């Protein structure tokens, strides 16, 4: 009888465990990272009877969690990929929208500006038209600045997020190290049962870490898990965790890098080694979209301002002042502001960077790195990877050896290992401004005019049909003309002569009509047949306020292919920027959609093993309740049998 009672009691206790475990499962149905648990039983050691063995009940071996290491790893890597593409996409779409937004986009502003330029061309003496052109120029500048400030705000946000992520990652790493310790202690306690909830907690932390950066794990014999990030940096070894930190960039203090320290010592920079997770997404976004977009926008600003200024210099304003003697129409950023010496180097080497205005069409939006190897400087284009070597300690990189719209001059005494980071167009948008304050100073007219010689009353004296175009200045240096130049035609020699020499050039009406000639830097075409002795006068365009020739040349810059080696207009370049960011954003969107699907699948397969199903638990509840009731019944029966015996013997 005693054994029946014992068996029943062992069953009751076991089923109590079962009911408790089922309750625990139900209680944690919504707990992140919880793996459903089950009770493993076995029969108790049977007692030997004369006739054989008789069972002595049931015992609980262990409470285990339903867990698959392979599925867990798959889940981690899919979550790294998903969260990386999500972060990247969420940031990229903001740039994408910003560039094309009707309100902020550069496109409509450029259109309005050039409309205003044409209005001045139509009516060059109209002060209101000139005023409008200046205010539209301001709007263009504001548009560049606005977009750049939004990009800069995004850059700030990336920095803030990096700081947050780093501090969260540090918390997680120390949490994992702490749990490694707890788990080692619990596993060593000798119960034989795994510390399920601690294991779940640690897996959940590793999952959260995976959401921030790609990790790899190695299981240890004592139950600890070692964590590696980047390309093999040990983030957790047993009970010790590494520390990540936010470090200033070696060149640019406003740019943040990720530092890594395990134990003592100074942090090593691992920014470029990190991938996956929100941290990887942030870094990739900064490298692939944010920085290139700012550089490119700056490049368009610099190219626009440089080419517009160059043409504006070749005009004269309402008061007859030469454009080159006026302030620049647009004030352009100084690329020198974006020269970053190695903050850790103390040598006297210096790098001077200037835009090469004559070759501005070759300007790129790329970053460059200069490095001195002890003998020569090497300039590396950070985007294309192309390198150019400049001999000696003080070489010059220019159109001849670099050909990218820049002139870079090195000076001082460099030491081996000296480096400079150059981002020539980075502040092109932010530092752009309109340099002309007075609408009268818009140089709408050409500085010279060419006309037939006239008599004292202003009546032209030529008798032939020869006609010269009004003439365009090609260089500001020769202007204004010191004195008028009179071209006299000799019909017998078919040539024009001018000056004291005199200087001559041939013009044969039969073969040269429509050709372009240049005298004293003034370009003009000749048509028709001048009579012998006919004279044309090249003179300063005094009082030519109604002249709009320079304005028309400025207006034509709107469609001029002055960028990308003469293949793109400003608007084309901006369209390419939009398309480029659009393509990257779209790719991120597609990637995110794919990765989300994969992560969902991984989660589903993981939960297939580990997730709690309430219906299943309800059924189990029923099953264990019934078993518990049955065991109770065994106790009742056993008690009744005992009573029967008592009653029988008590008589």
């Amino acid at each position, binding site marked *: 009888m005693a054994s029946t009672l014992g068996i029943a009691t062992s069953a009751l206790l076991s089923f109590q465990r079962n009911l408790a475990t089922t309750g625990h499962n139900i209680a944690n149905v919504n707990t992140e990272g919880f793996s459903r648990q089950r009770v493993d039983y076995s029969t108790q050691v049977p007692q030997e009877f004369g006739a054989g063995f008789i069972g002595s009940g049931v015992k609980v071996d262990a409470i285990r969690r339903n867990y698959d290491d392979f599925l867990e790893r798959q889940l981690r890597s899919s979550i790294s990929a998903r969260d990386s593409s999500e972060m990247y996409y969420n940031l990229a779409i903001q740039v994408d929208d910003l560039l094309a937004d009707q309100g902020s986009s550069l496109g409509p502003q450029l259109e309005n500006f050039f409309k205003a330029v044409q209005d001045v061309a139509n009516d060059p003496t109209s002060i209101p038209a000139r005023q409008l052109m200046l205010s539209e120029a301001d709007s263009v500048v504001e548009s560049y600045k606005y977009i750049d400030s939004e990009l800069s705000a995004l850059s700030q946000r990336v920095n803030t997020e990096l700081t947050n992520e780093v501090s969260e990652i540090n918390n997680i790493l120390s949490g994992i190290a702490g749990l490694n310790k707890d788990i080692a202690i619990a596993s060593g306690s000798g119960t034989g049962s795994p510390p399920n909830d601690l294991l779940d907690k640690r897996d959940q932390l590793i999952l959260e870490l995976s959401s921030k950066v790609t990790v790899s794990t190695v299981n240890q014999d004592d139950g600890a898990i070692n964590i590696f990030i980047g390309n093999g940096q040990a983030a957790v070894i047993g009970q010790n965790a590494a520390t990540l930190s936010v470090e200033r960039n070696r060149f640019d203090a406003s740019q943040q890098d990720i530092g890594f320290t395990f134990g003592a010592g100074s942090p090593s920079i691992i920014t470029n080694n990190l991938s996956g997770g929100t941290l990887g997404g942030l870094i990739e976004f900064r490298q692939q979209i944010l920085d290139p977009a700012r550089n490119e926008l700056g490049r368009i600003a610099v190219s626009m301002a440089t080419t517009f200024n160059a043409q504006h210099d070749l005009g004269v304003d309402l008061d007859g002042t030469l454009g080159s003697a006026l302030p620049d129409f647009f004030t352009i950023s100084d690329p020198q502001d974006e020269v970053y010496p190695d903050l850790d180097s103390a040598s006297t080497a210096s790098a001077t960077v200037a835009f090469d205005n004559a070759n501005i069409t070759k300007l790129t939006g790329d970053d460059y790195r200069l490095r001195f190897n002890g003998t020569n400087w090497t300039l590396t284009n950070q985007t294309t990877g192309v390198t150019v070597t400049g001999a000696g300690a003080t070489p010059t990189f220019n159109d001849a050896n670099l050909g990218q719209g820049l002139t870079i001059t090195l000076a001082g005494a460099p030491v081996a290992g000296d480096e400079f980071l150059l981002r020539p167009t980075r502040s092109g948008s932010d530092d752009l401004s309109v340099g002309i304050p007075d609408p009268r100073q818009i140089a709408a007219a050409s500085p010279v005019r060419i006309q037939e010689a006239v008599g004292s009353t202003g009546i032209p004296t030529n008798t032939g049909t020869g006609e010269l175009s009004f003439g365009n200045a090609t260089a500001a240096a020769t202007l204004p003309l010191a004195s008028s130049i009179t071209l006299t035609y000799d019909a017998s020699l078919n040539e024009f002569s001018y000056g004291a020499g005199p200087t001559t050039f041939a013009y044969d009406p039969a073969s040269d009509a429509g050709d372009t000639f240049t005298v004293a830097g003034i370009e003009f075409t000749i048509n028709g047949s001048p009579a012998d002795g006919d004279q044309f006068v090249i003179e300063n*365009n005094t009082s*030519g306020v*109604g002249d709009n020739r320079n304005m028309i040349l400025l207006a034509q810059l709107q469609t001029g292919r002055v960028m990308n080696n003469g293949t793109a207009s400003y608007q084309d370049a901006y*369209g390419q920027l939009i398309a480029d960011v659009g393509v990257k954003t779209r790719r991120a969107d597609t990637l995110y959609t794919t990765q989300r699907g994969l992560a969902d699948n991984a989660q589903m397969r993981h939960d297939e093993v580990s997730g709690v*199903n309430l219906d299943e638990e309800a059924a189990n509840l029923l099953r264990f309740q019934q078993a518990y009731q049955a065991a109770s019944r065994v106790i009742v029966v056993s008690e009744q049998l005992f009573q029967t015996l008592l009653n029988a013997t008590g008589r």
Partner: protein
Amino acid sequence: MRISTSQMFLQGLRAIQEQQVKLGTVSNQLAKGSKILSPSDDPAASATIIGLNEDISRADQYDRNSHFASSRLELQETAMDSAIDVMQRIRELAILGVNGTQTTDTRADIATEGRELLNQMIALANTSDANGEFIFGGFKSQTQPITHDGAGNFTYNGDQGRRTVLVSENRQVAISDSASDIFLSAPDDSTESTFTVMWQFITDLESNSPTTDILGDIDAVMTRLSSTRSDVGARQRSIELQSQLNDSTRIRAEQTRSILQDVDYAEASSELSQYLTALQAAQQAFARIQNLSLFNVLG
């Protein structure tokens, strides 16, 4: 295969959210009338649209320039028509003046009218536009082109510049002719001008010695005026033609832009109702599945 309760819940929720996202996108497209909400929806089309917007904006500006040019040329036409009328009258007076029946007095009367006509002609050559610019002064548009010392000396103070206006990307039309071309250059004699011919006519009459020689000079001036007048007309017509070309360029650009970005309302509306139905189905499925629990049955 098993499925966890939270997966059941999440799957149902995800299905609802997916439909909501689609619904949000299509209703946003309908609201904006554009199927491209962000450039990333169609990067290549977005870049093309930027270019098309610029083309359309430029076509608008060329339109505006053409109107401006037309109105300037109209002003010039009016002035030149008047100048031709004046010369007609001078010609009539010249024929009248040489008539042997005229006396010193009647010739003086004709001369008086001639002086009026001369003043009118000078005023015409000094015509200014709404902005106060002299239209026949060449580039020196704020300098009065013709001055007269009252003794037959006429001075042209402008230059030979001609302002042009862009009526298309590569096409410029002259919207002004300087007085030196119109009034000062008589085709057969470069020392004479419209004004000196008129002055000769007047002084001949005043000295009672008109000759028929003046008629040749008057005809030369009229020929010059008429030929410039018809040249202006030709420019007007070419502006008009260019305007039509610009219009068709703009219409083509607008059509292309429309194909690239405009939402197809029929298609979008049917998508909208399709997503609505799907959303309702997802919601119903969610509600029904979430109501199912063994615990409900166990009581």
